[in-house]
């Protein structure tokens, strides 16, 4: 109270002696500028860094969305392919093209030798031919107009006609 007005005594006096007295010899302006530049530069750098990171996060999200979209599309296309490639669909389409299930397999060797009993593949329903292919009694979904006309013949027993190794093939594969 009353002591505050008087000259510094004791500890306060000792502390007071630590304070520099008289004007500083260093120029003040460059230092202030330096501090401002440091502060401002730091702030701007931080800002840039942050916005770059945020930009990256936006980009990430965008790309993730795109991935999802493409995955969806791929899965949809795969579904279409699967639908076409399913054996049932293949069989149906083969029948629409007039194909009929082959009978017993027969093989044509490279030397022209025929293994197995080649027979004419017949459409299941129409006129019974003597060839013993009772296996061909699959569900008859084909319109009758394809009939026996669209018969895929196996090479007859003797002549080595140009034919694939497996003579009468199936519709399934």
């Amino acid at each position, binding site marked *: 109270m009353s002591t505050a007005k008087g000259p510094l005594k004791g500890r306060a006096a000792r502390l007071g002696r630590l304070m520099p007295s008289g004007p500083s010899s260093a120029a003040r302006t460059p230092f202030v500028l330096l501090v401002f530049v440091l502060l401002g530069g730091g702030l701007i750098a931080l800002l840039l860094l942050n916005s770059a990171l945020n930009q990256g996060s936006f980009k990430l999200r965008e790309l993730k969305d795109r991935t*999802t979209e493409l995955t969806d599309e791929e*899965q949809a296309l795969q579904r279409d392919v699967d639908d076409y490639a399913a054996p049932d669909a293949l069989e149906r389409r083969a029948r629409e093209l007039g194909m009929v299930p082959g009978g017993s*397999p027969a093989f044509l060797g490279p030397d022209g030798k025929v293994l197995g009993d080649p027979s004419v593949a017949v459409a299941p329903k129409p006129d019974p031919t003597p060839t013993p292919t009772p296996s061909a009694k699959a569900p008859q979904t084909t319109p009758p107009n394809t009939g026996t006309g669209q018969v895929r013949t196996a090479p007859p027993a003797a002549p080595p006609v140009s034919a694939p190794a497996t003579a009468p093939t199936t519709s*399934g594969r």
Partner: protein
Amino acid sequence: MPSKEPPRRRVPGPARPTRPRPASAGARPSRPASRPAPRPAAKRPGPRPPARRPRTIRLGSPRPRLRLISLGLTLVMLVFVVRLLQVQAVDASAYAAKADRYRFQDHTLSAERGEITDRNGIALAASVDAYDITADPKLFTPEESKLPDAPEQAAALLAPILDKDPAELAKKLRTPKSRYTLLARKQTPQVWNQIKDLKKVYGEKSRATGGTGVNLLGGVLSEPSTKRVYPNGELAAGILGYVNAEGKGAGGVESMLDPELAGKDGKIRFTESGGRQVPTAGSQGTPAVPGSDIELTIDRDIQWAAQQAITEQVKKSKADRGYVVVQDTRTGEVLAMANAPGFDPNDLSAANAASMGNAALQDAYEPGSTSKVMSMAAVLEEGKATPGTHVTVPNRLHRGDRLFKDDVDHKTWYLTLNGVLAKSSNIGTILATGQLGDTQAESNRVLHSYLRKFGIGSPTGLDFPGETPGILAKPEDWSTSQQYTIPFGQGLSVSAMQAASVYSTIANGGVRVEPTLVRGTKGPDGRFSPAPAPQESRVVSEKTADTLAKMLESVVDDREGTGNRAAIPGYRVAGKTGTANRVDPELGRYKGYTASFAGFAPADNPQVTVYCAIQNPTKGSYFGGQICGPIYKKVMEFALKTLHTAPTGSEPARLPVTFEPTP
């Protein structure tokens, strides 16, 4: 001590104004003297006269007060320090974790379920992205939507997209006092995109007209999920099984190999702001490990042929069910395992619970004559007979408590052992197996040991869920009639897979290879690890197996054989028919028949075994040779073509079937 604290003297200063009162009492001159040491004076009231007492009433000495306050402060600080230590050091990790829980959001990265493919890598089961379409019924109330019939309008828009009944959707959207309703499960992303587009259109419309300002479809939402799809529908459904609503395997291979297929869910935690990850805050977690792909031994095309053939015949014969098993004779790999009726794993709601299993492995039934081949194997292997051994088959045979007969009434037959098999004579088989031991008990034991070696009465080794081991009693427990019926396949039960395996064993030169259904797994790293090699065990000698194959050929190619309808022109086919009395599972007694056919081709270089059985055919023929023979032929032809198996070109064995009795 007091002399060391001169500044402290200032503290009691404020007490001074109170002093005038005691001063007026006349004690003023003594006051300055007491000043330098007020405390000793207060502590020692003894020497002072009692008259001084009123003058010493002061606010109190500051020292005890200061001490008390500093003590209190110290205690408070101590409490703080202790608490600080507790928070910062002792329980630090617990509090840090608690803080993290609010700062970080945990997200599960669901692992992708592995595919199931056939032996050529064609997907039979795959997982795709899907959405559950949900809605918030509160947003469809008249107050919220500002429309009297919002649910009906929305339902009319959504019904064609979701392929549902509008009335049903409207009912769901009208759910009172609810904020959640599930409109449709597992819809494709395309469906959700359509709804999103529609939502956008209505959103613009509501804003443009300025009318209601409320999006009609604003309350329709979606939840991402995954869906298991089976691109081939019913194909191989019994083997593949299905997954339940949680996406876990609940049947078939899906359940058998669920741990491999499911993979391991991952976790990620990051700070979130507006649903977006804060990039600077960092994230941590473990990535999801996708499930392995399972490659089955199934060939999709053969499976299709088998399934189509059996489904058609079961329908035609109005039978309960039917099975076809196709097995590679040398490796034991199952190429096809078809059941009819089947189910569509894509739509379990429409499936019949009774047909949802894999009946070819889960049904145990009496095989009938197809099991005679095991009796013949025992007789040949024990050297008790040769294919040419003469067997005189009477019209009736009295054994135990019963009179046995063949399925056709005949005069006395003069058959070779080969003929007994070709004509499927029960009496002949009883006579032949009677030779296995000196006594009937001995014969039973020998036959039992062969049946066991062929795999009857024990699981096949597939480890398929719900698989039956079949029923085969111990020889001591065979009843009087059982010991004569078991040789021709009644009184014991097998599964279709076991029956097929018996024929594969003979086809494979007498070595039984455990059937396998899984070729291997392809891990998330893309490396294929093949399944362990199946166990092999020799059941009969190669010579016996060869002889049996020739005998089985007579069944199919002999004019008098029972299996002519299974003949494939150009090929040597071995097979055996079976027509068993069937135990009706509901009645518990014999009713109806089990028709079956088993065989392999080519007989002299076997590649494929095909087994077919039809339970309880009620329309048309019930003979195995009549209804299963053609299926065998159809499936075998298809398999031979698919596997590019050429005929061997050798001449059939044509072992004699009958002999001329010498009078």
